[in-house]
């Protein structure tokens, strides 16, 4: 009995000990789990802190990205507006080029542009975007009611914003109320030419925060507007001046045309007059010369010597007069186009030889050396040989006249891109520059000692000029007093 009780007690004690041991081990286990739980909780909290860090970094990145995007869009919009307003030179068109989407891209919803009208002494509205029609008049009235303030803003040449520290808050509130905006920027428009103005931009949302750089962007836009207005006004001015100039040129051209027509008519009349007078004079002169020749021939009996002498003089003077009239007639015929040049292939050397033969006695008398050189590629001209010979005779004769004894006359031909150029040079007395411009005019004679001693008509070089020009050539002279003269002319080459 005792032993069984003892065994039972032993079992109870053992069980209790085992239970205690198990309990202790469970307590330790729970403690361990609690530790694990704490660790897990700590890890979750740490991860949550990391999540916060990630979210904040992501938010900052998004903000930077957004700001960058906004700036890019704003710059693009600014560029687009600049392009649009710089492509026109008409003031009204400049404002029409700015569209609502441009302003929206710059981050604003509303825009107004006012220009100061100096004559009317008030601001006029030139651009309105984002406002319904019924709001326009009250806004214009508001701006003009406070025009002194806005003129001061133009004078200060600085943009103002809702955040400008120097501006009175009540003024800003009034602007916001009148323009129905929650945020605004006002920037002066300052063209160098003409009336200045102001640009207003704003957003309708009262909560819109100010973005950095907005005022600079609007100042750039206002500046660009100012420059475009300046260009348009300068263009307008230049265009008006040009129109005036064109009008004057047109009037003067008309006047000149009328005068030229008159000159041509007079010139034609003169040519006709000279031609008919010459004709009328030549007939009696031919008779005079005929009778003088007959008397001199002695067919009507011997004449006293002094009568003979006078008749010979009469005969000579008649010859001179006939030559003079012939020259006059030729000039007027060539001028009026009545004489057609019989153009053909002419050998320059042959013509020069014939002329030097003709003038050989005179050349010998004054012991003047005449030489010529004709380039290989300038041997032939397309010309009327008889007329060109007259040109050679006239010029060489003149050279003979103005070259002192033992002087030199040279003739040279060469090919130029303009044609065959012939230069006839002498080392005679030459002529002053003012005479060179007039030498080809009718009846002009250089005022020098030789001309005072020798007779001349002053028609020779005019005839020469007319002949050359009738060949579509041109003639000019270069001369140095005391050194000589060079007459040059161009003629078309013969193939």
């Amino acid at each position, binding site marked *: 009995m005792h032993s069984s009780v003892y065994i039972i007690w032993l079992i109870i004690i053992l069980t209790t000990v085992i239970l205690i041991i198990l309990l202790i081990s469970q307590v330790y286990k729970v403690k361990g789990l609690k530790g694990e739980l704490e660790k897990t909780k700590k890890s*979750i*909290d740490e*991860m*949550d802190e990391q*999540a*916060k860090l*990630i*979210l*904040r970094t*992501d*938010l900052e990145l*998004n*903000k930077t990205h*957004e*700001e960058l*995007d906004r700036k890019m869009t704003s710059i693009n919009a600014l560029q687009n507006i600049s392009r649009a307003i710089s492509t026109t030179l008409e003031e009204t068109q400049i404002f029409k080029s700015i569209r609502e989407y441009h302003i929206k891209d710059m981050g604003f919803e509303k825009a107004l542009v006012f220009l100061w009208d100096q004559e009317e002494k008030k601001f006029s509205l030139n651009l309105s975007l984002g406002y319904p029609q019924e709001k326009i008049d009250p806004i214009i009235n508001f701006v003009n009611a406070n025009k002194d303030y806005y003129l001061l803003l133009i004078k200060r040449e600085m943009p103002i914003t809702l955040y400008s520290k120097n501006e009175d808050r009540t003024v800003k509130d009034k602007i916001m109320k009148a323009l129905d905006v929650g945020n605004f920027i006002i920037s002066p428009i300052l063209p160098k030419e003409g009336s200045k103005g102001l640009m207003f931009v704003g957003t*309708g*949302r009262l*909560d819109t*925060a100010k*973005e950095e750089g907005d005022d600079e962007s609007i100042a750039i836009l206002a500046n660009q507007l100012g420059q475009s207005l300046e260009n348009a006004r300068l263009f307008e001015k230049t265009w008006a001046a040009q129109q005036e100039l064109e009008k004057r040129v047109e009037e003067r051209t008309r006047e000149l045309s009328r005068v030229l027509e008159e000159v041509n008519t007079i010139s034609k009349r003169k040519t006709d007059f000279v031609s008919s007078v010459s004709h009328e004079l030549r007939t009696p002169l031919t008779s005079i010369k005929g009778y003088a020749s007959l008397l001199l021939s002695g067919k009507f009996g011997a004449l006293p010597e002094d009568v003979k002498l006078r008749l010979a003089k009469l005969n000579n003077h008649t010859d001179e007069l006939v030559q003079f009239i012939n020259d006059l007639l030729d000039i007027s015929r060539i001028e009026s186009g009545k004489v057609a040049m019989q153009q053909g292939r002419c050998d320059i050397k042959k013509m020069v030889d014939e002329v030097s033969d003709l003038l050989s006695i005179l050349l010998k008398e004054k012991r003047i050396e005449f030489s010529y050189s004709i380039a290989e590629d300038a041997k032939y001209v397309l010309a009327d040989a008889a007329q060109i010979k007259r040109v050679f005779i006239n010029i060489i004769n003149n050279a003979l006249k103005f070259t002192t004894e033992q002087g030199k006359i040279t003739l040279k031909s060469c090919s130029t891109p303009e044609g065959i150029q012939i230069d006839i040079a002498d080392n005679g007395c030459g002529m002053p520059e003012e005479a060179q411009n007039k030498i080809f005019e009718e009846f002009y004679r250089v005022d020098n000692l030789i001309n005072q001693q020798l007779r001349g008509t002053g028609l020779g070089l005019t005839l020469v000029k007319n002949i050359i020009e009738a060949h579509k050539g041109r003639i000019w002279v270069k001369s140095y007093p005391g050194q000589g003269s060079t007459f040059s002319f161009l003629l078309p080459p013969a193939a």
Partner: protein
Amino acid sequence: MDIGVGLSLEKNPIIAVKEALRSAQHGVPKGKPDLAILFSSPELSSSTMLKTIHEIIGAAPIIGSTGIAIISNQGVFNQGLVLMLLKLPENAGIHTSIINTLNAAADFESGKEMAERFIQNFHYAPRTFGLLLSDNVIEESSGLVRALREKFGTSFPLIGAYNSEADRSQRNYLYYNNELSRNSCAAMFLGGRVNFGFGTKHGWEPLGKQHTITSSRDNVIKTIDGKPAVKLYEDYLGCPARELKHGPINIPALYPLGMPIPGEKEYLLRNINFVDEDSGSLHFHGSVPEGGSVRLMIATKETCLNAAKQAIKQSKLILSSGLIPRENAKRFALVFNSLARYTILKKEVAKELDIIKAELEPGTPIIGLYSYGGLIPLKSTSCPGQAYCNNQNLSILIVGG
């Protein structure tokens, strides 16, 4: 099925709709269309535009909505309109309806009436899906949705988009026949031998530990973990409450709250609509049940674009399991995208559209709009299951083929 689509970027609504109609009519050469779906930017909304459509195409019903941006094969545009004309096959039909004044008390009854009208007038079987467009939030728990589910069954797919404006400056409208409507819900039910498939994904991933909504009512969370709800954002993002809605970036779109849904892999997103700075409570575009868990969500452009790929693949998978033979059948895609994605992807919204186009057969007409949120079943190729109100999803519905 004949499908015609027209797009116009004209600013004048009448010129725009006429231009879009000219293109759309080419796709429906025989007879009058059975339906016109119209999406446009808000400034084009005009009842004259709707009358012009009726004058040209006849009495076919018009259903549609304005949105932040429109989607078409040619791209995403924040100004313009896109119009789709549909001529359904003989053994398919549609029924359209509208609830003109939405209010919580009467929605259930209105929904029931709408569903009954549909059942009475609609003889086509099977009933394929219902499309809901609204200018108010369409909650999965709303009376309207509950009534439709009660009448049509829980597996009847309801797909929709809504534009609740909150503090937005531009007003959105619904298009229904000749009328512009507000505070309304327009519905279109399609039935008959027409295949369809849908998919929806967002691309946001949870970050940070789970928190519990300790106090909420409808779409307002008052406290999370016993603290004012706004503290969660202040704590995680380190920004003051004011910056949530009025900061330089759209924080609610970038970091929505995610709610885990039993049996679903993706979280249901909730986007902040309003911040009550005094009480610290947050108002969302959708219901937020008390006791539920929430986590802050984060996404990148890559995860968003990847989600688009998954959504279109899911749509195609459901479409391919359709019962109707597919030979030579035409199809079209309706895309409902969200403002949040527009905010994140910005200029890359075109990439998202390219992803969708790449997965569709070349030339498949696509129209859609960007809205504040939508309604769509989150999954299942076998059973569409419950439709959830979502804020940041891309939902694609392919019909036909």
